[in-house]
């Protein structure tokens, strides 16, 4: 049986056999970094194409279909174009911050990659406070956006960045509470343990109503946190032209664009880990043969499948709903999502204490 676990293990064994432990660790680090960067590049290409295809099919169009079979290389061509383009810096912009901002946003995405379990025992860093780490690091991305908005010396950018600041800070709360619900059930912050606790069934199914509610809340909150429609007020094309990245062009714009999709991937991966069992295959009660069949599908495919399902859901939102207004956005958070998630957390705690979940 192929598994990523076997491959990583044999590489590690071989490295430690050949080199001394410090050097081996250093080489491992380099490999991980290279893998992470190439994952970013591939994800960017795939997700942009996926978004365009999903949008096109919803909008009764064909979407990209000229470059490569079925338009597969469209995003490659777009990236090439963006690399060749001149990256303009506006006059009187804060040049240092202006250039730094896209990298900050990207960096946050890279840091978030660390604790995600891509497959069985295939994880960069199984930190024991995994969930806490994710919620704290993900709130850093707002700094990059604020930086971009301020440094651009453009009023549209500034307005977009201010909106984004208010939005991300508020929606962090309900996203955090939704995550806490699962932590209460599991009793652990470690990603690997959260996944292991779903051996018998995903939390979405065995966590009763609170898990379902917190799943919905989580999806709404992360849609807002990643600045996706219907919460894309930071960009708000018809209001602020392009919001915080109005002044960006060329590769720096591409980094923002990439970061948006990486963020979607990461939040969806976390959602899949917490609520849909991560790389755990789907098991239904006593159907032994069915469960056995499911076990044959590799764990990495399970994980990717679940993640892309959530990504599709978020894309589906984007191409269906109109945008909210800035005060309605905050109303939604403070009047609806936060009270519901507080109540939901209470309910989950009661269920967890009495052990009513399966």
């Amino acid at each position, binding site marked *: 049986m192929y598994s990523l676990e076997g491959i990583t293990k044999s590489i590690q064994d071989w490295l430690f056999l050949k080199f001394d432990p410090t050097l081996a660790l250093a080489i491992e680090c380099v490999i991980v970094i290279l893998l992470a960067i190439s994952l970013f590049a591939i994800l960017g290409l795939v997700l942009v194409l996926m978004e365009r295809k999903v949008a096109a099919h*919803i*909008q009764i169009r064909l979407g990209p279909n000229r470059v490569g079979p079925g338009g597969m290389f469209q995003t490659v061509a777009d990236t090439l174009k963006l690399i060749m383009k001149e990256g303009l810096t506006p006059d009187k912009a804060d040049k240092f911050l202006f250039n730094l901002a896209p990298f900050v946003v990207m960096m946050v995405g890279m840091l978030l990659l660390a604790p995600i379990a891509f497959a069985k025992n295939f994880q960069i860093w199984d930190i024991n406070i995994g969930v806490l780490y994710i919620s704290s690091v993900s709130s850093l991305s707002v700094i990059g956006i604020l930086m971009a908005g301020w440094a651009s010396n453009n009023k549209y950018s500034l307005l977009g960045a201010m909106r984004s600041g208010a939005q991300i800070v508020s929606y962090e709360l309900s996203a955090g509470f939704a995550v806490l619900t699962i932590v209460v059930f599991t009793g652990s912050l470690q990603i690997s343990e959260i996944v292991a606790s779903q051996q018998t069934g995903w939390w979405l199914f065995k966590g009763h109503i609170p898990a379902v509610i917190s799943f919905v809340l989580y999806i709404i909150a992360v849609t807002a946190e990643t600045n996706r429609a219907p919460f*894309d007020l930071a960009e708000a094309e*018809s*209001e602020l032209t392009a919001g915080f990245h109005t002044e960006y062009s060329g590769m720096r714009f591409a980094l923002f664009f990439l970061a948006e999709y990486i963020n979607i991937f990461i939040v969806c991966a976390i959602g899949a880990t917490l609520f849909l069992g991560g790389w755990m295959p789907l098991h239904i009660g006593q159907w032994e043969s069915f469960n056995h069949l499911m076990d044959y599908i590799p764990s990495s495919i399970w994980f990717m499948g679940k993640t892309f399902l959530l990504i599709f859901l978020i894309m589906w939102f984007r*191409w269906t*709903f*109109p945008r909210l207004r*800035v005060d309605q956005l905050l109303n939604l958070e403070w009047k609806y999502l936060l009270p519901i998630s507080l109540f939901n957390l209470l309910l989950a705690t009661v269920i967890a204490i009495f052990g009513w979940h399966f």
Partner: protein
Amino acid sequence: MYNQTEILKDTSELGTEGELVINMGPQHPATHGVLHLVVTLNGETIKKIEPHLGYIHRSIEKMCESLTYRQFIYVTSRMDYLSSHINNLGCALLIEKGIQIEVPDRAKVIRVILSELTRIASHELWLGAMAMDLGAFTPFFYAFREREMITEIMEDTCGARLTMNYIVPGGLMYDLHPDFQKKVKAFVKQFKAKVTEYEDLVTNNIIFQSRTKGVGILSAEDAISFGCTGPVARASGVSCDIRKIYPYEVYDKVSFNEILDTAGDSFARYMVRVKEMNESIHIIEQLIDNIPDGDFVGKTKNVLKLPKGEFYTRVETARGEFGVFIVSEGGTTPHRIKFRSPGFSNLSALNHMAVGSKIGDLMATMGTLDLVIPDIDR
């Protein structure tokens, strides 16, 4: 709950401090053309809007002074390009009134059917663009699918999709396409089947409703005072449908309702337009099987000369009352021609409607005003 006007009051004492002036347009995704708005903001709240026009001013009024009465009709297609047929109709009606040309019944009926098709096409485009202003991109494509059927009907019969120029003084340029009735019926069927889609996607959507309800309110008195016409005024409860008040062509022989609403907010304007599309379908259904036989153009002289005097006609375009005012000296060209365009008056109400609301509300207000910039600039 806070009160928006209270916030305004607080900062107005600060003078110009805390003001943010942004130029919305001439290149902006939501202004649909080259409208330039200088928006003064306090945070996200709008304090003042100043339209700067003229980016697409072609001085059509001056241009028409050197064109003959047959020639100048086509120029009016370039004003409100979404209801170009109705603009042409308004000019032709004026010439026919001035010279007293008898228009055959067949031409009258066809003109009305095409006018209503134009109105539906215009409202379809508006619906898509309006949803896009509020951030929903998909309804745009669904609306354009239906609009495409209309433009194909226009292409078959008039030979052009947007600037038709199908009307000549005295009737029509040429007869209907043989497939016209069949295609219009197919369109009516398709439209009725698909109109529920807009309800699901846009009208009933909670986000859309909360974005438009209570936004950009215009009272009936203000609507009259600002000279607003069309769906904008009707949503405020002002009865101003030229087709009802001063019926032209065969509008007095068909039954249709003038859609009125009293709320005066963006949602009311939205609903008025959506219901108007259904009324237009109703008019088309009454007329499509009853196109009388006969000539499609009346007898006219080769060179048209309007008698000395002043003439005024008005027609109801998709945006409101379109008026043509001609001062004739008795020659072959008009001495002075003035187009009363509905968009110009509707735009003047924008500042009044949007002050005190958020930037997002400005998009909803501007979207429901249904501005066509060449119509405003002329």
